[in-house]
């Protein structure tokens, strides 16, 4: 045998087993070589792989293992030493590498495991985030739906449209089978089905409002799930097949404008609510989710607001319509009033003429009648006629004045007049009435009041008379005082007339008249009405006193024309009242004799001579007849000195006296002697007063005696006014008269 370096396999080769081993080794080697290739391939493909070094190691290990098995193929049969050496090298290397790899894996495998854990964690996190994302998206979806719904609801102000739109949109958004709105009836005791989604014309189902389920819904502001079998939810006829879907109900507050307070949100405790019922489709196994309930609640609130807006709008439209109607009506009324005023003015203008003509005839003829000879009864009748017709004329004038005053066409008749005379005239006119009522009337004229003034005498007297007349009319007992004075500037400004700033000047003064009475007074709320035309206070006293209610209105206008002011003060009912007025009057510069009105009572029928200022002396022992004679002479305008005895007479008589009238019928006194003595006293005849005897004896003897004594005239008692006047005027003219029976 040659010595070969061949290595014998350990055991004798079994043919079949050897074959199988040979094939297996082959495949193992193949696999071992392909695995790293695959690894390399896939690693290259993947982007991230942190363990390259491990891979290289692993690859090396596998390659070597493969090499080992490959080389093992040759060891099944006889193989040379080289093969055995290579085999051994390969195995050694494989051992080294695999040990290294094993050592390395100890480090690496926990890492790889933790990677796995992290991966799981990340996956969970991703799932969670996904879920949340889903939620947010759903919420955003809900919000979008709400906005859209709100927009739809609020885009109209019509109540029906709002409600209909709500139901439609909700149905669409939530996919509802049925949606219904129950409104409270007018009585508030029932809910009535008002709107539904699917049914076109809801029949008027009503449900009592105090059901427990309804109370439950109303008591909470949230959407509440209710049973599909409760009366509000049973809108469709229930058939056996259907499993009704879940039902939710929510309250819709019906807000009213008056519910909103300024400071706090409206209390919802006493509110009326409507009920909205939403039904999911039956047989759908769908459930109400939280976000959907929220959506429903929000929609319900929005609907409430939209409805209140609609209600406000309706209200304001109604108010505007009403205002327009009223405007039209007012315009019409104004035009009618203007027409009426024009018609009245025309009527008055015509009636003015028509009414005045007969009045003129009555007054003129009555006054002519008055001048003729009448018995006292007839005279009285004529005077009554005259006075009544004057009153009627005044009334006509009043009415016409009022209308003219309104037009502004009235003008004052200015002239010089005696101011004091006006007051005295008023006093005289009012005294009879006052004395019937036993009222005391007093007139108080200030001393600085000018005697003459420029103004409208007639209208001033009318004003004063009206005011005083009212005072008398409304006073049952007590007194009336009339005060007149010149108003100073401080007193001119009155709290009642703050806009009134009169400025007295040299040419003008302000007359202030106050009429105070102790009568029934006026309550403070009636005072403004006093100067209104035709308005009278409602007391029976007014009714009985007559009067047209025009008086004060006219007075006010006259006073205003005279640039003055009139007002009435009263402390109240039963406390009397004071009427005060101021008027502006002119001051005449100089009193020309020619301009002066004559003294009123001097009738210029007879006696052209003016007796004013002439001095006479009256001697009479009898007080009464002395007084009567004095009265006569004063009435005629003489300045009278009275003496009661002859001595006195001789003492007093002087050349200033134009006439001496003496009673010569007194027994025991000799008037004739006095006459003689007077003659002796005054030597010059032009200085001597004329001597006239007043006697009751008509016999011739007396007359002769008088003549002999040197008397200038004899007058028989009783003396009438006219007789005295004519006698004295003749006497003074001719300086002698010898008969005056």
């Amino acid at each position, binding site marked *: 045998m040659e010595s070969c370096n061949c290595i014998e396999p350990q055991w004798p080769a079994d043919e079949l087993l050897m074959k199988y081993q040979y094939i297996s080794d082959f495949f193992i080697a193949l696999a071992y070589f392909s695995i790293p290739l695959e690894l390399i391939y896939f690693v290259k493909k993947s982007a991230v792989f942190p363990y390259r070094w491990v891979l290289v190691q692993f690859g090396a290990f596998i390659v070597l293992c493969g090499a080992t098995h490959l080389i093992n193929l040759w060891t099944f049969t006889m193989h040379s030493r080289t093969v055995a050496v290579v085999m051994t090298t390969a195995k050694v290397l494989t051992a080294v590498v695999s040990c290294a790899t094993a050592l390395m894996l100890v480090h690496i495998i926990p890492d790889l495991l933790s990677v796995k854990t992290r991966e799981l964690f990340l996956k969970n996190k991703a799932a969670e985030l996904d879920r949340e994302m889903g939620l947010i998206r759903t919420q955003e979806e809900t919000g979008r739906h709400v906005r859209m719904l709100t927009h739809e609801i609020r885009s109209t102000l019509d109540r029906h449209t709002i409600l209909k739109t709500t139901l439609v949109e909700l149905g669409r958004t939530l996919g509802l089978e049925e949606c219904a709105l129950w409104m409270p009836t007018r009585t508030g005791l029932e809910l009535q089905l008002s709107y539904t989604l699917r049914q076109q014309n809801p029949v008027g189902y009503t449900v009592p409002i105090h059901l427990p389920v309804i109370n439950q819904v109303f008591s909470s502001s949230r959407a509440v799930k209710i049973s599909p079998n409760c009366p509000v939810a049973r809108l469709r006829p229930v058939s056996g097949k259907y499993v009704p879907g879940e039902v939710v109900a929510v309250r819709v507050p019906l807000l009213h404008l008056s519910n909103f307070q300024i400071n706090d949100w409206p209390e919802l405790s006493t509110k009326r609510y409507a009920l909205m019922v939403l039904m999911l489709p039956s047989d759908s196994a769908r459930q109400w989710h939280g976000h959907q309930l929220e959506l429903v609640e929000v929609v319900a609130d929005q609907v409430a607001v939209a409805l209140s807006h609609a209600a406000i709008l309706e209200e304001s439209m109604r108010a505007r319509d009403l205002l327009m109607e009223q405007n039209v009506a007012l315009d019409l009324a104004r035009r009618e009033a203007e027409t009426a005023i024009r018609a009245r003015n025309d009527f008055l203008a015509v009636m003015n003429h028509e009414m005045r003509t007969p009045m003129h005839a009555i007054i003129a003829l009555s006054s002519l009648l008055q001048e003729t000879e009448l018995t006292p009864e007839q005279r009285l009748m004529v005077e009554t006629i005259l006075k009544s017709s004057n009153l009627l004329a005044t009334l006509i004038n009043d009415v016409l004045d009022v209308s003219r005053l309104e037009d502004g066409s009235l003008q004052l008749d200015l002239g010089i007049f005696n101011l004091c005379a006006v007051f005295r005239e008023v006093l005289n006119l009012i005294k009879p*009435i006052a004395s019937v009522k036993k009222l005391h009337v007093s007139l108080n004229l200030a001393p600085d009041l000018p005697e003459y003034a420029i103004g409208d005498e007639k209208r001033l007297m009318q004003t004063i008379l009206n005011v005083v007349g009212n005072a008398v009319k409304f006073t049952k007992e007590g007194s009336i005082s009339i005060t007149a004075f010149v108003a100073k500037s401080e007193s001119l400004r009155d709290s009642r007339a703050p806009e009134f700033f009169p400025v007295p000047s040299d040419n003008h003064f302000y007359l202030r008249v106050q009429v105070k009475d102790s009568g029934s007074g006026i309550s403070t709320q009636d005072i403004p009405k006093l100067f209104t035309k035709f308005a009278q206070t409602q007391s029976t006293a007014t009714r009985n006193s007559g009067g047209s209610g025009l008086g004060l209105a006219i007075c006010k206008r006259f006073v205003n024309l005279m640039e003055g002011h009139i007002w009435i003060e009263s402390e109240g009912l039963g406390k009397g009242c004071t009427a005060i007025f101021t008027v502006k009057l002119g001051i005449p510069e100089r009193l020309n004799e020619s301009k002066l009105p004559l003294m009123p*009572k001097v009738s210029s029928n007879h006696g052209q001579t003016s007796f004013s200022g002439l001095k006479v002396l009256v001697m009479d022992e*009898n007080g009464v*007849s002395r007084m*009567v004679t004095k*009265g006569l002479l004063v*009435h005629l305008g003489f300045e009278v000195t009275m003496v009661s005895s002859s001595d006195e007479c001789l003492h007093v008589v002087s050349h200033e006296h134009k006439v001496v009238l003496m009673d010569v019928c007194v027994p025991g006194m000799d008037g004739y002697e006095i006459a003689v003595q007077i003659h002796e006293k005054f030597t010059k005849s032009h200085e001597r007063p004329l001597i006239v005897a007043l006697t009751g004896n008509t016999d011739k003897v007396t007359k002769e005696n008088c003549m002999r004594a040197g008397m200038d005239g004899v007058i028989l*008692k009783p003396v009438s006014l006219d007789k005295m006047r004519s006698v004295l005027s003749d006497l003074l003219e001719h300086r002698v008269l010898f008969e005056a029976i």
Partner: protein
Amino acid sequence: MDVVKLQKQLVDYRASLYHEAFLDEQFTQLQELQDENNPDFVVEVVSLFFEDSERLLNELAKALEQQSIDFKRVDAHVHQLKGSSSSIGAQRVQKVCITFRNYCEEQNVEGCLKCLQQVKHEYSLVKTKLETMFKILAAGGSIPM
């Protein structure tokens, strides 16, 4: 109107006075003398008359009570009374005074006494009538003529 009624009443009354000869035209004259300067003339004169007359009547009564009657004084008083009453226009009083004076001249005591009674009677009558009339007038005022 109340004023007219009042005036009618007054006039009726006065008319009656004239009719019954209590007053004559002299009274009318007196009333004419009343004006705004002399608003109370009539009242004053009549009051004076009343005063005067009462005094005179007292004097007369006293004088006629005397044992020896001084007819001159009585006559003087009666003359005064006559003058006053004629100034007023108290017609009846005046007439009685005239009669009285005649009795005085005759110095007829009984006649005088009788006249005194009459005068007193007439005076009181006219006084009452005038006072009534003044009540109607009250504070005076324009009496329609």
